[in-house]
């Protein structure tokens, strides 16, 4: 460890430091706005420090972490998303009487875990990052402990994430037993000679199982709808974006560096998972009446779309995935942001009735939600369209037509339930009935900003594409 190493770790240090700082601030002077301010300043400083770190990249710090442009890109994305989510949390918690300030400590720690994941180059940092993230998420999901559903969600997540970690560890152990290394570069070198080894294949399968749980892909998706429904809306946004995005970035780094996606069994396994996620995610979403559950199943399907790009392989695939994740982050934070803004102290605004006629009461909010849903459905002018276009293009360049065809068919199925929410917002309703009204006004600014970003990326994505092209060759 020298000065340059410490400088490279600056984003991590800043996030970790600000979480400690928030904690100390709470003991001294418990104020909701103060916690938020420290959090936001910490996040902004960490984001800014990326520009200090960038000239040093790529740099390995100990054997655990590698800070290359790829990692920096995803760290930036994670920090930006957390920034938006923290503001949403503020508005969401403002009406609550129970302790509100600790949420930001947990949020920062979870962010730190995700950042470790995207910079991980060793099984140990992989596992450490994952556990830092998961443990904070258990607490975050169950944060509103006076309500029944959040606690249920927290426990469900705890049990399933715990078992998936066990799978993951076992897989790592098997691979270590065969190859004798846990470092990413070492793995890449030694896997070439041991492709057919049953231990390696079994280890890979277990690791895929563990990652599959975290991504919430079929058949490891069972926790997704319950946790999405139960967790407080901004926390759900965090689980859907930062947690899943970080793990996907890690999946991409490990498998692409090692070249494991070229192994026939791995390819077939991921193809099956992708197809099942796309079809089952979209089909089950049709049966739901709860907006958060619909979005949960939709996220299962979206992970399936991402896996199609993953299967394509090559530099175009990793670009497509980066673009898709950016669009998905914006859209998902935006969609859950609308749910957050409409929720009150009693419950989250998650039934379809809460949205009935929203357009005629709150046209701007309803327009934002419409755009977010259309982006999830992949309709032009939104970033979601270009993201899906990119994924299909990556797939077409690799010639995996069957997967693309299923992507197309399942995204048409997806239209049904997106349109269902959209149409509900435009229904005319009687005057005088009680409906969900926006409570958390502070979140509205974030929503407007996200919407502008969404449309900007959907119409003129060139700046982002330039960044991705410059950053991503791994």
């Amino acid at each position, binding site marked *: 460890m020298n000065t340059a190493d410490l400088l490279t770790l600056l984003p991590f240090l800043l996030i970790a430091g600000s979480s400690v700082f928030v904690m100390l601030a709470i003991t001294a002077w418990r104020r909701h706005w103060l916690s938020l301010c420290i959090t936001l300043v910490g996040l902004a400083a960490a984001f800014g420090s990326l520009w200090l770190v960038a000239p040093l990249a790529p740099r390995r710090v100990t054997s655990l972490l590698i800070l290359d442009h790829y990692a920096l890109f995803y760290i930036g994305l994670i920090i930006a998303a957390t920034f938006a989510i923290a503001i949403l949390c503020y508005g969401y918690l403002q009406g609550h009487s129970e302790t509100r300030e600790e949420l930001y400590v947990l949020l920062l720690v979870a962010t730190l875990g995700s950042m470790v994941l995207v910079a991980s180059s060793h099984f140990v940092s992989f596992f450490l990052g994952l556990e830092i993230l998961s443990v904070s998420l258990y607490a975050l999901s169950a944060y509103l402990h006076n309500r029944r559903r959040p606690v249920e969600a927290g426990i469900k997540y705890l049990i399933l994430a715990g078992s998936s970690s066990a799978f993951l560890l076992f897989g790592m152990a098997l691979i270590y037993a065969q190859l004798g290394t846990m470092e990413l570069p070492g793995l890449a070198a030694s896997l070439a000679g041991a492709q057919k080894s049953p231990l390696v294949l079994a280890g890979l399968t277990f690791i895929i199982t563990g990652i599959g749980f975290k991504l919430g892909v079929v058949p490891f998706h069972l926790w997704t709808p319950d946790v999405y429904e139960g967790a407080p809306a901004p926390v759900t946004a965090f689980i859907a974006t930062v947690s899943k995005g970080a793990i996907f970035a890690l999946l991409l780094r490990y498998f692409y560096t090692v070249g494991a996606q070229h192994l026939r069994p791995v390819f077939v396994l991921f193809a099956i998972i992708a197809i099942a996620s796309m079809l089952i995610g979209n089909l089950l979403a049709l049966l739901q009446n709860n907006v958060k559950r619909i979005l949960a199943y939709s996220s299962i399907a979206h992970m399936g779309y991402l896996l199609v790009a993953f299967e394509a392989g090559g530099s175009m695939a990793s670009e497509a995935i980066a673009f898709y994740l950016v669009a998905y982050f914006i859209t998902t934070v935006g969609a859950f942001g609308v749910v957050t803004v409409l929720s009150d102290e009693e419950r989250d605004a998650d039934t379809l009735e809460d949205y009935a006629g929203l357009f005629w009461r709150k046209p701007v909010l309803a327009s934002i939600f419409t755009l977010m849903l259309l982006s999830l459905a992949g309709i*032009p002018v939104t970033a979601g369209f270009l993201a899906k276009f990119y994924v299909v*293009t990556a797939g*077409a360049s690799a010639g995996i037509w069957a997967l693309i*065809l299923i992507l197309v068919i399942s995204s*048409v199925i997806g239209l049904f339930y997106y349109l269902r929410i959209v149409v509900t917002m*435009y229904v005319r309703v009687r005057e005088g009935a009680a409906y969900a009204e926006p409570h958390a006004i502070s979140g509205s600014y974030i929503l407007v900003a996200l919407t502008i970003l969404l449309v900007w990326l959907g119409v*003129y994505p*060139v700046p982002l*594409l330039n960044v991705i092209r410059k950053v991503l060759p791994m």
Partner: protein
Amino acid sequence: MILLWLIVILLVGGLLAWAAGRWSVLATRWISLIAVSADFVIGLMGWIRSASRVDLLHQQVWLRELDWKWIPQFGIHFHLALDGLSLLLLMLTFLLGIMSVLASWTEIQEGVGFFHLNLLWVLAGIAGVFLAMDLFLFYFAWELMLVPMYFLIAIWGHERRVYAAAKFFIFTQLSGLLMLIAILALYFAHHTATGIFTFEYADLLGTPLSPHAAWWIMLGFFVAFAVKLPMFPLHTWLPDAHTEAPTAGSVVLAGLLLKTGAYGLLRFVMPLFPATAHAFAPIAMVLAVIGILYGSILAFAQTDLKRLVAYTSVSHLGFVLLGIFAWNKLALQGALITIICHGVSTGALFILVGALQERLHTRELSRMSGLWETVPRLGGVGLFFALASMGLPGLGDFVGEFMILLGVYQKSRILTAVAAIGILASTFYALKFVQYAFHGPNNHHWTLPDLGVREAIIFTPMIVILLWLGLYPQPVFNTFNPAMETLQQHAGQTMQALRR
């Protein structure tokens, strides 16, 4: 730049109309009317200028062009271009746009601002489709026109609007995505052949494709356009969508959205895949003829007036499909005239049905009869457009269908004969419409207000246009011919490139 303005005026006009809707409903309507009229005037001036220099049309490929880099990483350009074909379809778009705004003047009373936003944006999307010369941009516009149309049906439609809107959206979205796959396949095939990534229409012409690949790619395009057209048996979304949409929505659907399908076939399928399209022509033409007969028979069987008019579209667009796949000069000219005249006459019929529904609060034919007694002027207008729709000589529709039949005769006599029966069948539904609605005794004792000034303003130009195209369609041909020759030339060159 003027091409961009055409689209921008509509987009900004829509936003202004929406914003104005909060304060004054009347301001919204006027802003929309002015925006569409401005586009119409710009288009008309461009047309007159180009018509006075017919020789120029033959020299340049495009009358006007705008080519900007958009997303260079993928070789995507923001490329708009105008030729005779696009120009005529644009004029139709703006004309029907004006009529739609006028037709909604009293019909739409709720959410007026948002309605006009959607209406103007749908028109902008359609204008984009007719102008885009980059396949990505084309797909972008193609998808873009769906969302506002969906809202028009789902919010302001009739009883089963949500179902109809979803069906419409899903049919077109699925077929659109198949087209996207086809576009990408072509994009990569072109890259393999030349090493260049491009979505540019002019570059993709003549891309060497293996017969197998060409067949699948052509089908991807064809299905998207055939669903929009709509071709039998992919038409099932149409009766629902047209019936449930508000009047302006039906006018735009029948008059313009269906035409984007025909335009796509003309502009993309035939020139890009001439050999495959040629091999496919018999199948397409048989399906077209089935559509002609099927549409007119089902139209005759309807008791809902709007559904009746909707099914006539299946029949008329069958003629267009037939004409396009016959791919000779006469048939193509006929197809173009039919495209325009069907837009005008069916648009007028939908406005007429809307006017009747506003007065009667029903579309059921059985609830009408003897309306001539109380609304003679409206009856006269109805008779005129019914006759136009059944192809009365002297009116535009006749010219189009007659020329298509002449063109198809050179390809297949049997198909010509069967399609001619379709014209006969159209007399049945047209006469049924007039007889049931307007003739006979006024059993239900309706006393209704007759044709108002606003409605007269709508119908008069439409009548004049149909008479003009029926009696002297030459100006339209003059504008269209150079574009048509270019398309045929492209197709020919591509054929030669393939043979080599």
